[in-house]
């Protein structure tokens, strides 16, 4: 996956290098700017079985800060924020690959270096008894639950 470009960033940013389970790395830039979740909406995206984005709805595109064409074909980890512990995603993948739903609070990274919090549920798309991909549905979280998740993730890192 392509490193983030400092020219994309709005405001003062910190630099991190993310390391993914497949051994690949990505340099990212992070600011403290939060984008509020759009009230009343769902963010929906789909991936193939390897976690490569195949489609997303307009809210998914809008909140990410990318164009749709920049997202489709990329790993879903293009939205990975360095404040999220790797163990949370390991648990996510183990859960959905076994055919079960995963849900939890997630801090996502935007193209401009900002972030947004969601309550995410990921469901395997089972067709004729076979997993053909995954759908992630995000909704607006309560601030109390976000505060609790932030504290837990800080302890896990």
């Amino acid at each position: 996956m392509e490193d983030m470009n400092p020219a994309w960033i709005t405001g003062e940013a910190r630099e991190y290098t993310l390391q993914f389970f497949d051994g690949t790395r990505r340099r990212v830039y992070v600011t403290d700017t939060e984008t509020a979740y759009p009230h009343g909406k769902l963010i929906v995206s789909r991936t193939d079985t390897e976690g490569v984005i195949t489609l997303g709805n307009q809210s998914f595109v809008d909140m990410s800060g990318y164009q749709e064409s920049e997202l489709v074909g990329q790993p879903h980890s293009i939205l990975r924020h360095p404040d999220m512990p790797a163990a949370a995603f390991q648990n996510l993948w183990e859960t959905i690959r076994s055919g079960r739903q995963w849900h939890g609070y997630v801090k996502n990274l935007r193209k401009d270096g900002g972030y947004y919090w969601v309550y995410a549920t990921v469901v395997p798309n089972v067709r004729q008894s076979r997993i053909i991909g995954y759908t992630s549905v995000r909704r607006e979280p309560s601030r109390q639950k976000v505060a609790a998740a932030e504290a837990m993730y800080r302890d896990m890192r």
Partner: protein
Amino acid sequence: MNINFTISPSFPTERISDWYIFNTWLQRALSISIHLELYNDFGSQRRAIAEGSVDLIYANPFDASLLVRERNFLAVAGPTGGDEMVVFTAAAKPYQNITDLQSGLRLSCTDDPSVNTVGRILLEPADLDASDIITLPTETYIQVTRAVLRDHADIGFMPVDAFSSLSNVVQRDLRVLMTSQLHVIHHSFLVGPALHERSEEIANLLSSLHESAKGSELLAGLGSERWRRIAHEDVELMIDIISTLTQ
């Protein structure tokens, strides 16, 4: 062959005669006898489905899940827009936003599973779950409106269509706290095994209905401008999305 047709009980009551007119048209178009049975509530409709007494249905999204995954129904068509709902309160109440709502909240709602599930999701930003809410079930959206206006309930859940059909005078005494904009959950026409052989024909009929003056008139009576064809995978994806909303 006699076919049993039913529609989701969430439809506005003023459209009953339009559904009968639509049924007459459909019988002629397919040259079969179709009996339209309207159920007063979701419970009695579900019993009819369980007994195998439904062959054709304009289904609520939550019932579509059961019918497609467990009863071998096929989705053929649906409205172009999604099913959206509102969370509203009385204008005299102090609540301006969802996050102003507190535990102990009195909620008036019908038994519409789609509206109620989406409504509860819209309450999550206020950190309210089922244990924080006193649910006051009613049978109709008119009763939901009355409960809120008479301060028997703090908030009500209602489909956007039903809220829009309230008079301006009534709407002036209410305040919408949030309107869903999900766009991904919608009613669907589903055909059961007895009509599988004709599913393609029914899909073509319904998705081209807007192309004639008579068809446009029928659709307008049912509150739609046009119906679109629904591929089986479209409804499978909707079912996957619905399954996440109850978590």
